[in-house]
């Protein structure tokens, strides 16, 4: 089985980092994985994004035309990806920074007030972890949250206990928010 996830947002919102975390977790979990960023500082401005593909066999294309799962951290990302998500796909978006609701009926659109939640947790930079938590909740077959937590510790610069704890809370908070939002949606 193959899962694909696009993380999209402003540069600085940590989308590349979130994607890498997922990639590490998948790798640790014994799966095939690719992480592919939009690249090149020759393109200034606009959104940054990355595509993570997780699979139990060799991965062909590291990019997808119609992603199954999209995490959109800002309004432009919602604008860009809403039309692209695969039918029946998942679009989790940061409702705190999105001015509109979705229009496509054939996808699962999940609003998460992630910026606010991050602010509540005391650090806006936790935004990406909150959204990651939401993803794990809603597309949970990708990898178990425990694997992601271990990956956080092993591969990312989050070995310090406080940081790790914060990130973990963010993941859990994301899961909880998603659980709620998913139920509503």
């Amino acid at each position, binding site marked *: 089985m193959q899962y694909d996830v696009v993380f999209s947002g402003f540069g600085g919102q940590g989308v590349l980092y979130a994607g890498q975390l997922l990639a590490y977790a998948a790798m640790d979990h014994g799966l095939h994985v690719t992480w592919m960023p939009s690249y090149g500082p020759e393109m200034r401005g606009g959104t940054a994004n990355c595509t993570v593909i997780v699979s139990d066999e060799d991965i062909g294309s590291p990019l997808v035309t119609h992603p199954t799962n999209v995490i959109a951290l*800002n309004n432009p990302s919602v604008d860009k990806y809403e039309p692209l998500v695969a039918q029946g796909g998942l679009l989790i978006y940061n409702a705190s920074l999105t001015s509109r609701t979705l229009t496509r009926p054939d996808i699962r659109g999940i609003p998460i007030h992630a910026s606010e939640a991050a602010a509540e947790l005391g650090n806006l930079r936790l935004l990406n972890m909150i959204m990651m938590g939401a993803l794990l909740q809603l597309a949970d077959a990708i990898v178990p949250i425990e694997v992601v937590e271990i990956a956080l510790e092993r591969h990312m610069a989050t070995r310090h206990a406080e940081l790790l704890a914060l990130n973990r809370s963010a993941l859990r908070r994301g899961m909880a928010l998603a659980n709620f939002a998913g139920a509503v949606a």
Partner: protein
Amino acid sequence: MALKGRIVIDTERCKGCELCASVCPHVAIHMSDTFNAKGYRPAQWADLNNECTGCASCAVLCPEAAIRVYREVPARAVTTTT
């Protein structure tokens, strides 16, 4: 008393670099709390003390050419021509 001035900032063009604000001798420019469509917090003219002289320093420094500066001029000549 110095001549009076005022500025108009094209807030959609503004990228919130704060350079205009930094250079205004009268602290007449502040950064907005809200975002423009591009996601920047644009500069706002807030000449609270009515001190803007139209010196144009802000406009001279604005990399986005987003500021128009008006300055009072004695009007007599103007009235005769138009």
